[in-house]
């Protein structure tokens, strides 16, 4: 392609301008342009000079446009203008074009976009114009398209087809945003007239007009005008396609949400599948949040679902509780964002759910202390936490703890005016009521209740605003798991959900003392073998299980403790039994939620390996509720989304009803929502004639609503989670049931004063463990007034059970008003001071010796 000299290009454009300026000359100018360019492309000169172009133009035109008037102009009655007048006029027009093009086509949209990204003003007041990065890019195309064309004018070259396409596209995008803002435009105009501001809502309209103006101005007098408008039309259609492309995930998600919310189960399930394939998790999440659900679209009609229904759909689609994602997004967007600012508001205050994290509420300090008495197969742990509230309003801290299997909370403290106040233990309903009543008065309460097997929910209020602090402590009695007579173990408790922020690197001191040797693979080895003194990261506590092992005297098979609460003694016995596998076959209930996706292969392998122990496998099925198989190799399994385990469990109980020797093993992930009515399951549990043992192997972290339901009717036994992988623990569990395997069994028995205690005297935690098992036995016995009797026994022994809870109130008057009585000093479980004192003394002596050794050495230097 030949290169044009500037003079040639300038001459050519001016000549065409003159030809085009005549009446009806646009068509002729276009013909001349094509002819000249075609002829030059045929000639292929190295450089296209002005002389060459002039020669062709004059020949083709039949006259010199700069010397002679064209025949058309001769006929025209319009006064003739000189070439300099025409060129000057074009310059003026281009100057004006540049001004409004840059102002309204580029600068205003850029300012508007940045303002919205930084402040989220439109999103918080009306609708979110930039709900995704795609929308930011979409809006940015408007100033980019205009700037590209304006820069083209600046270089003096003609606008090409692509630039016109771009301008058409910017019109489409601007129009898309102009329509929803149209209702605000009169107010914006009033704002501009009277206050001098209000341009931002008008930005889409102005940029659209700027693009129109550019096309019109650059096309006027230009021989290619007809083509410009056609190209612009094509660009407009392409722009609409881009808009549709950016918006389609949300439109498809809305469609899926409406399907998933249908009353027709088949259509609802189709909707869930549709959302998994085509849905946008962000859009589903937005529809879960009251502050966003009606504001997430430009021309978007939101889904018909309620926020609660959308949350259930979000769980079914993703397998995650919505606020986990909402918290992550709020944290990533920062406190200045709409989500960040809104997340300072606690939507769940006083409710018995953890809920979303509150920006500004954080865990400042945390520590775990414990004492292990392995010979008596128990430990006592205390977890202390201090919260800080940097928001300008009082806040409630809530946390869901996973306790070691079989453990129970037995001490609860809240620091009021620097003093640790003790809790009152009573029936669950009574302590919850007392807590709620005090919360409404904005006084200081702390409530601890169970939330499913081995889970407790603690909530305290109010953490004073603007930097105020609140300190709590949970003490728990923990039964040791005895793998053999000479060793016991337990897992440290962990947090599985909290509504406050905690730095992952927050150091948590862990101090555990024992009368026998301790060891742990996860905790640093202590200098003294019967003591663990270390600090772990907060994130480590919530990761893989941290197991502590303690040696015990294998010869010690009997121990006893006093019962300071109801008199008498507790007699404990440890025995080794041999497993007979024919005793009980397993009905396995297998969750297929996303939480099991990583464990899938190992779990299947373990089930196949111990296939002789399994009678049936009830697999959770999204559409049918469940499917029953004889062997793990009989079915294909895909773990995705969040599924309802209740129907499969209900069927497993029906299967077990016909056999007195079958147990249920439920392998499951968290299920924070009860997706179907618990009525069927509760009815089934109430009707059953035998007491089928139920084992729960929990995979993943989080609350399980079905476990909470089961807690009302039966005592589910937890499969010990010692390993990172659930498959490994499943193997251990199934292996321990093999015929001939030894199994250590601990029994507690209450004796009145008339019978003689046997064995060694141990701490009264043994009594608490007896009371715990007895309270549960009564609760699930279907005896008369079982709930009340169970709650009374648990409260008497200071235990938080499915029937009882603990609440700390601020003063005696509040306790009296609530009909509660706090536990008396000296009766609570505690870490023996003596143990700490001895260790501190040893440390102090060691330090003094070390210093004395160092001092002479320093003098030598």
């Amino acid at each position, binding site marked *: 392609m030949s290169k044009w000299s500037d003079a040639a290009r300038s001459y050519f454009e001016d000549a065409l301008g003159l030809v085009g300026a005549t009446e*009806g000359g646009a068509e002729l100018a276009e013909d001349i342009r094509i002819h000249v360019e075609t002829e030059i*492309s045929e000639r292929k000169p190295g450089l296209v000079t002005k002389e060459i172009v002039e020669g062709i133009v004059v020949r083709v035109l039949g006259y010199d446009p700069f010397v002679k008037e064209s025949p058309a102009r001769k006929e025209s009655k319009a006064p003739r203008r000189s070439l300099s007048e025409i060129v000057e006029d074009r310059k003026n027009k281009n100057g004006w074009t540049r001004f409004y093009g840059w102002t309204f086509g580029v600068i205003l949209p850029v300012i508007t976009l940045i303002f919205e990204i930084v402040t989220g003003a439109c999103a918080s007041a009306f609708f979110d114009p930039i709900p995704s990065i795609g929308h930011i890019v979409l809006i940015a195309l408007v100033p980019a398209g205009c700037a590209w064309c304006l820069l083209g004018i600046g270089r003096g070259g003609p606008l090409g087809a692509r630039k016109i396409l771009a301008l058409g596209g910017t019109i489409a995008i601007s129009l898309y945003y102009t329509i929803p803002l149209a209702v605000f435009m009169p107010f914006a105009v009033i704002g501009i007239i009277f206050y001098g501001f209000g341009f931002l809502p008008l930005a889409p309209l102005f940029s659209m007009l700027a693009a129109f103006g550019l096309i019109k101005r650059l096309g006027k007098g230009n021989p290619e005008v007809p083509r410009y408008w056609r190209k612009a039309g094509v660009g407009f259609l392409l722009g609409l396609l881009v808009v549709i492309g950016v918006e389609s995930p949300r439109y498809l998600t809305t469609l899926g949400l409406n399907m998933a919310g249908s009353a027709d189960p088949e259509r609802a399930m189709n909707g869930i599948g549709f959302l998994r394939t085509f849905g946008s998790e962000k859009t589903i999440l937005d529809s879960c949040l009251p502050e966003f659900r009606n504001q997430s679209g430009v021309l978007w009609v939101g889904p018909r679902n309620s926020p609660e229904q959308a949350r259930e759909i979000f769980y079914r689609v993703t397998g995650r509780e919505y606020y986990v994602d909402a918290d992550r997004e709020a944290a990533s967007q920062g406190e200045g964002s709409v989500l960040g600012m809104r997340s300072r508001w606690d939507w769940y205050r006083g409710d018995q759910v953890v809920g979303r994290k509150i920006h500004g509420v954080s865990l400042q300090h945390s520590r775990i202390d414990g004492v292990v008495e392995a010979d008596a197969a128990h430990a006592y742990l205390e977890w202390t936490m201090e919260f800080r509230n940097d928001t300008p309003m009082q806040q409630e801290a809530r946390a869901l703890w996973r306790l070691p299997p079989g453990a129970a909370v037995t001490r609860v403290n809240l620091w009021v005016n620097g003093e640790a106040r003790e809790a009152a233990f009573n029936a669950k309903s009574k302590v919850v009521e007392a807590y709620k009543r005090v919360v409404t008065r904005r006084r200081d309460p702390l409530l601890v209740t169970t939330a499913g097997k081995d889970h407790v929910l603690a909530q305290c209020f109010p953490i004073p605003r603007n930097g105020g602090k609140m300190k709590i402590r949970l003490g728990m009695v923990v039964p040791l798991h005895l793998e053999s007579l000479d060793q016991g173990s337990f897992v440290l408790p962990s947090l599985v959900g909290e509504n406050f922020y905690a730095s992952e690197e927050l150091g948590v001191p862990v101090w555990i003392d024992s009368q026998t040797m301790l060891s742990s693979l996860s905790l640093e080895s202590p200098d003294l073998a019967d003591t663990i003194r270390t600090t772990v990261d907060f994130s480590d506590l919530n990761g893989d299980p941290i197991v502590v092992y303690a040696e015990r005297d294998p010869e010690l098979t009997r121990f006893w403790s006093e019962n300071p609460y109801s008199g008498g003694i507790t007699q404990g016995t440890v025995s080794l039994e041999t497993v007979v596998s024919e005793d009980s076959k397993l009905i396995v209930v297998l969750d297929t939620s996303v939480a099991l996706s990583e464990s899938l292969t190992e779990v299947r392998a373990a089930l196949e390996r111990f296939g002789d122990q399994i009678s049936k496998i009830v697999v959770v099925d999204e559409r049918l509720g469940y499917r029953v198989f004889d062997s793990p190799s009989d079915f294909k399994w895909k773990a995705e989304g969040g599924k309802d385990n209740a129907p499969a469990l209900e069927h497993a109980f029906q299967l077990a009803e016909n056999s007195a020797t079958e147990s249920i093993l439920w392998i499951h992930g968290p299920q924070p929502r009860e997706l179907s009515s618990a009525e069927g399951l509760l009815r089934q549990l109430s009707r059953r004639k035998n007491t089928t043992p139920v084992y729960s192997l929990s995979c993943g972290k989080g609350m399980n609503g079905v476990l909470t339901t089961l807690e009302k009717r039966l005592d589910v036994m937890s499969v010990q989670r010692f390993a990172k992988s659930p498959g490994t623990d499943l193997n251990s569990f199934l292996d321990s049931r093999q015929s001939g395997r030894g199994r250590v069994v601990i029994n507690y028995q209450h004796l009145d004063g008339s019978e003689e205690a046997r064995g060694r005297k141990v701490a009264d935690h043994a009594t608490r463990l007896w009371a715990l098992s007895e309270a549960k036995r009564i609760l699930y016995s279907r005896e008369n007034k079982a709930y009340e009797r169970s709650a009374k026994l648990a409260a008497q022994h200071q235990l938080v059970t499915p029937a009882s809870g603990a609440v700390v109130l601020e003063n005696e008057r509040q306790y009296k008003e609530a009909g509660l009585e706090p536990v008396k000093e000296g009766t609570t479980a505690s870490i023996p001071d003596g143990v700490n004192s001895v260790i501190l003394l040893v440390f102090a002596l060691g330090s003094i010796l070390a210093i004395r050794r160092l001092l002479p050495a320093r003098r030598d230097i």
Partner: protein
Amino acid sequence: MPEDKFNIDNWATQARKGLLEYSILNSLVEGERYGYLLVKQLVGMDGLGVSEGTVYPLLSRLKRHGLVETRLEESSEGPARKYYSLTPLGREQLKLMTEYIGNLMEGIETLKKGGNENV
């Protein structure tokens, strides 16, 4: 007197003027034509004696009157190509022109043979 002397060139110019539009329309009877080549052919046609500067305005006028239409085709190798074609109106007008010229030639032939005495 010189003014009264018959000039064959003037007559040819008059005749060409009348026939130029007819020639252009006839060149499009078989289908659309690439404008640049069409003009080149018309310019190079013996006897027609026209320049590009005459043809383009004429094409433009025919288009304005609705006798021809154009379409642009972008080319990756060079300038866009403009194609001309007859509109239905153009075809109709061409037919009338052809009939008219036919009648005219027929009349001239009749005159050559002495004329129709019945007229």
